């Protein structure tokens, strides 16, 4: 394998695309960032790419299609644009890692279900709240069945762009669905809160889980700690604010033990400010997914050559 790499491109030269560019340059791993493509010739992201020696284009998807050597494409544009991009990328055999809400492929959370979708041509990163909280719900459900999981994501107002603001319902639907199908909860619920405090707050998530039956607190505690360590490998600012709390609450299913996990996500500050952990976890997860796909492509090439 040695120094071999897979060429990748980023679609979208906004904040997310630019932050991802910095992450890929900082830790390229098995990837080589060959192109940043936007549609606004005056965008700051494209100018930064050129300054850093990365090929930049304002021709959007067309610039990617002209480069058959690019095998993986990160899409940080919009849901609407990705619907079109997904088709074009699939037709030309590229792997698409979708950071938009378009969801043309399966949802992936790296430490939970990425292994199941290694042959997919298009994967979706759900939501920032999903990337942050689904690993913790899964950490509980892998040791004891979870009847109900509820998450509250609080993000700094400044880190919530127009896409999030105009489609805030999609956050709750998509995240709740992810808690169920990937997190393993029988029933999921998601809440998002925008906090305008100055200076801006770090992304905060609270995860509540109601196990279906009796469970061992130590086992749940250890599983959560292990999962946090695993996510920290690709999101260094991912940490518990306190050890998991266990208490008894009134619920529609009677008095039940509830596991409460208080999580904080601090961004790495590659391009986005450190308070925007919600955006950082998306670009960091995307990089992780890209790395796993790139290694797999490289190992396949070895076999075929």
């Amino acid at each position: 394998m040695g120094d071999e790499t897979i060429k990748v491109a980023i679609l979208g030269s906004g904040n997310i695309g630019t932050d991802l560019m910095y992450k890929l340059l900082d830790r390229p791993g098995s990837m080589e960032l060959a192109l940043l493509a936007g549609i606004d010739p005056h965008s700051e992201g494209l100018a930064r790419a050129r300054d850093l020696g990365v090929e930049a284009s304002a021709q959007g998807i067309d610039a990617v299609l002209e480069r058959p050597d690019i095998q993986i494409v990160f899409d940080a544009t919009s849901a609407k644009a990705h619907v079109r991009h997904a088709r074009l990328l699939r037709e030309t055999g590229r792997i698409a890692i979708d950071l938009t809400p378009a969801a043309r492929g399966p949802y992936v959370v790296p430490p939970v279900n990425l292994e199941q979708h290694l042959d997919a041509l298009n994967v979706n990163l759900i939501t920032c709240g999903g990337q942050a909280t689904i690993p913790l719900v899964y950490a509980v459900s892998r040791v004891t069945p979870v009847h109900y999981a509820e998450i509250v994501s609080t993000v700094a107002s400044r880190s919530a762009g127009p896409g999030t603001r105009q489609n805030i319902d999609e956050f709750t639907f998509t995240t709740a669905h992810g808690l169920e199908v990937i997190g393993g909860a029988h029933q999921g619920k998601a809440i998002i809160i925008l906090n305008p405090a100055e200076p801006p707050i770090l992304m905060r998530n609270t995860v509540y889980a109601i196990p279906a039956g009796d469970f061992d607190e130590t086992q749940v505690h250890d599983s959560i700690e292990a999962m946090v360590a695993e996510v920290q490998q690709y999101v260094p600012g991912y940490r518990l604010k306190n050890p998991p709390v266990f208490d008894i609450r009134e619920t529609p299913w009677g008095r039940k033990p509830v596991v409460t996990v208080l999580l904080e996500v601090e961004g790495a500050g590659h391009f986005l400010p450190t308070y925007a952990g919600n955006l950082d976890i998306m670009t960091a997860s995307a990089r992780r997914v890209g790395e796993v796909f790139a290694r797999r492509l490289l190992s396949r090439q070895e076999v075929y050559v």
Partner: protein
Amino acid sequence: MKAPRLTDTTLRDGSHAMAHTFTRQHVREIVTALDRAGVPVIEVTHGDGLAGSSLQYGFSRVPDLDLIAEAREVAERARIAALLLPGIGTRRELKAAVERGVQVLRIATQCTEADISEEHFKMAKDMGLETVGFLMMSHMRSPEFLAEQASLMESYGADCVYVVDSAGAMLPHDAAARVQALKATLRVQVGFHAHNNLGLGIGNTLAALEAGADQIDGCLRGLGAGAGNAATEVLAAVLDRLGINPGLDVLALMDAAEYVVAPIMPFQPFPDRDAITIGYAGVYSTFLLHAKRIGEQTGVDPRAILIELGRRQAVAGQEDWILDVALDLARKQKHAPA
């Protein structure tokens, strides 16, 4: 001053004080009493709005959609309103609430985040509803800033925008300045929603009326979050004495408060030390019961928790920060020299 329109929110804001335990029977009795006494709009929803039933805020004993249907069935003249907080409730619950009989939709956002409500206003207007915008925690921003946010809601289709003193932190001149700023900017109506944490529920409502408010809120017995709201029966008496009674039966509302609501209340909301602290620290009134419970669990004075939440600029709906702050303070207490 002109006669304002009154919305009674005993069955929504009161849901907090009741720990979300309202039953169909409660709704039937309270709606009947309010309707007969001439209250034109009655709000019925989980305290945190549609889909508010959760571990974060407390589960509803009876689904609020069922309570809404019950209210609509017994109301003869009054219109039934529901509250929706984007980020908690969605267009799905909005549609379901309309199917169960909601006629007025109140859409609430933190007062800095009006732009998350556009889709919900559009859908409500498309469905033929009357719409009201609710700028929560309005004490946290200047009158000019609020007027800009209110204009956004107006542009999305709000028929009225409320200055909401969710923390009960305003003094009368704060309420008046904010209502005035909205009146000077909007073409649609302006409302005011008070909490009584500093004992100013009625006083602030009066200041808002003098500043031109078209709509106001009340709860029977003041049953609401924190130290409760402006009491509907007191507002009725005051408006009547001012000569601007919008058609409320003052004595019937006193009876409704005394014989229908008082007997079912778990406690009388009033400015006790924790509730005063909410107004004083400027935090969300619904934090009251959660802070008391978590304070007891962690051995931390609820007032210390509330003041720290104010310092961290917690906003509407952030009940999960209460445990967070309490655990931080408990750790500090443990390590503090005796």
